[in-house]
């Protein structure tokens, strides 16, 4: 079934490359959304089964796939609005939509793959499609962003490949050559620890380019800044989750070996450094889109702290990435409406947004409250649980420093957001401001509301799925 899904999506992508007619192009986009939702429903109904050898519909994959399919709908709607407002020429419109669909397809397949090399291949494909999206504007800045993204991602995927080679060396000691996660887990006691350590270091470093963690986080920031906001929303949410899946599935293997403590130290260090870096940049950033991107680095740092701390932290980490995906994508979707009013993304040149677009400003306000993890945001619950897991792990000093860093982040984030919302921008001529329809914000409100609902009153199925996805970790 995954093969059918991939073939169908590739057929849509290829026809988009050749067809320029407006109605046909948009119908193909709609068709793909139906296709994506059909595939998601099929995946749910085949829950627990393996498919096409290399894919398994397991709980983590299903959870993230549903998240992706939910975010894909507003991404398509906002892409439509974006294209129509920018009067894109037919060629650039087709390439944009084709890359968007390829990105969503590759992420879906990457979530479900049960083999580390297959995850790696789909991560490569996301680099290809994301770079086409980043290069969308075809100007100097876009080129610079694309170049940096492609180069750093190329090095990262090479790192992952080296990690896979070391992993296969480690696996040879167990007398096996099957690199699927289930086989790795079954053989985890016999893996050679030295090679496994090197494999973990390289694979972890490689996937940080997608996850947005120290050391490879820079590529993602430039990418989300230069890509059109609807595509940036996908990169800042579901694509980061793909990086998480890559690390997490392998982390489960390592956690079942005596290397657990070492892996916790590595993950925790990278997570803490990411939080630190995010704080430093948040304090000085003036570009609102990059500010959202740095906030993503902060959240991924918190998620990986939860993974490193263990215990309830595992549950909270999975909850956190799902809720973060909803919140961050809605902020990125809102960005285009903001840009249409001010034609600028520098915080010094935008302000008093409530006057020009009340509904949009409410999205920004609620989005800020959600991203800063203040109640009633669902992220409050997951962050609270992660802090509790740090407490349980007796990392009090670390917890105190993390809380101080988060306070600084909330201060910087809040300062900038309230400036945008209430303080009039100096020298801004508001005679040409375009009126934005409040309907454009509806999807963003829905996404934010979902983050609140899933955090505060999670349905039993949802909790069950999260628990199943962490059941293989040692508790």
């Amino acid at each position, binding site marked *: 079934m995954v093969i059918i899904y991939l073939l169908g999506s590739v057929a849509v992508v290829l026809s988009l490359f050749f067809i320029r007619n407006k109605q046909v192009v948009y119908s193909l986009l709609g068709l793909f959304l139906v296709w994506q939702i059909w595939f998601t429903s099929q995946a749910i109904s085949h829950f627990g089964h393996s498919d096409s050898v290399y894919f398994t519909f397991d709980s983590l994959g299903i959870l993230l796939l549903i998240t992706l399919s939910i975010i894909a709908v507003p991404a398509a709607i906002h892409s439509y609005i974006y294209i129509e407002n920018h009067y894109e020429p037919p060629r650039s419109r087709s390439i944009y939509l084709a890359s968007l669909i390829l990105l969503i397809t590759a992420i879906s397949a990457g979530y479900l793959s049960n083999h580390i090399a297959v995850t790696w291949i789909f991560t490569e494909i996301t680099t290809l499609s994301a770079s086409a999206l980043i290069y969308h504007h075809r100007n100097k800045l876009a080129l610079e962003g694309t170049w940096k993204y492609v180069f750093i991602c190329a090095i990262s995927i090479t790192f992952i490949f080296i990690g896979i080679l070391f992993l296969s060396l480690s696996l040879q000691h167990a007398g096996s050559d099957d690199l699927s996660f289930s086989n790795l887990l079954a053989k985890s006691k016999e893996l050679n620890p030295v090679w496994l350590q090197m494999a973990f270091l390289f694979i972890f470093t490689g996937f940080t380019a997608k996850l947005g963690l120290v050391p490879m986080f820079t590529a993602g920031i430039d990418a989300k800044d230069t890509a059109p906001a609807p595509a940036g929303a996908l990169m800042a949410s579901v694509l980061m989750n793909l990086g998480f899946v890559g690390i997490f599935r392998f982390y489960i293997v390592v956690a079942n070996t005596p290397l657990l403590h070492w892996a916790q130290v590595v993950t925790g260090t990278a997570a803490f450094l990411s939080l630190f870096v995010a704080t430093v940049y948040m304090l000085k*950033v003036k570009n609102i889109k990059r500010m959202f991107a740095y906030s993503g680095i902060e959240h991924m740092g918190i998620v990986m702290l939860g993974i490193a701390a263990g215990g309830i932290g595992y549950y909270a980490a999975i909850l956190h990435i799902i809720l973060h995906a909803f919140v961050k994508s809605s902020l990125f979707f809102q960005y285009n409406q903001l840009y249409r009013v001010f034609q600028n993304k520098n915080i010094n040149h935008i302000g008093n947004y409530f006057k020009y677009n009340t509904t949009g400003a409410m999205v920004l306000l609620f989005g800020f409250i959600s991203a800063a993890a203040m109640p009633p945001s669902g992220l409050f619950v997951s962050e609270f649980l992660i802090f509790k897991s740090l407490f349980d792990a007796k990392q009090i000093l670390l917890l105190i420093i993390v809380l101080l860093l988060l306070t600084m982040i909330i201060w910087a984030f809040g300062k900038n957001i309230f400036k945008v919302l209430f303080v009039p921008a100096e020298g801004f001529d508001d005679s040409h401001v375009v009126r934005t329809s409040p309907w454009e914000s509806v999807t963003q409100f829905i996404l934010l509301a979902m983050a609140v609902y899933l955090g505060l009153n999670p349905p039993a199925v949802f909790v069950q799925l999260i628990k199943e996805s962490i059941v293989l970790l040692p508790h």
Partner: protein
Amino acid sequence: MIHVLLIVFIITLFYMAIANRLMTYIKVLALQGVLLFFVVLLQLSRIDPVNLGFILLETIVFKSLAVPLFLSYLLKRNNITREAEPFLPNFVSLVITTAIVIVNILISNVIKDDHLDKIFFVVALSTLFFGLYLIATRRKIITHVMGYMVIENGVFVLSLAIGNEMPLLVNLGIMLDIFASVLILGIFMNKIGDVFKDVDVDQLSNLKDY
């Protein structure tokens, strides 16, 4: 014989560390491709001949002909000056490269593994770190691309070490090689040459936080 070839491969790294002209870099890359061709021929004796043919073809056609030719075409087309413009003097480069190789030899002595020929490990990791070093200390974007090609060669050597047991991984490595090279070279070096006249990393600093 394989060991001799791999040692020559390491020597090419030293040569690259002190080379001044971009054309020299390209020639060294082509030479590395030829060396890898013979390593593959001698090392992968136990795999399926069709697959072996494919791998050999990739090393000789892609690594030692297509990429170097395309790089030299880019040099001419974009009128890139022929100096490599390192940030550090060549002597320091040489010392650092030596240090990289020695550290890797020390690491390989710590690891005791019957499944892996040590020299493959040393060559692969030295090449990898040398490539990263090359990227970090050269000013031009095209030298970054060359550094990346060096890294790819290092990874290829590592995949050859276990190629007999897992030929699939060698093929995946080749796929990565072709995919990344086409993406980096084919699309962007062309475009970057059109947009930025003298291609220099200093020009790629417009994406800012403020």
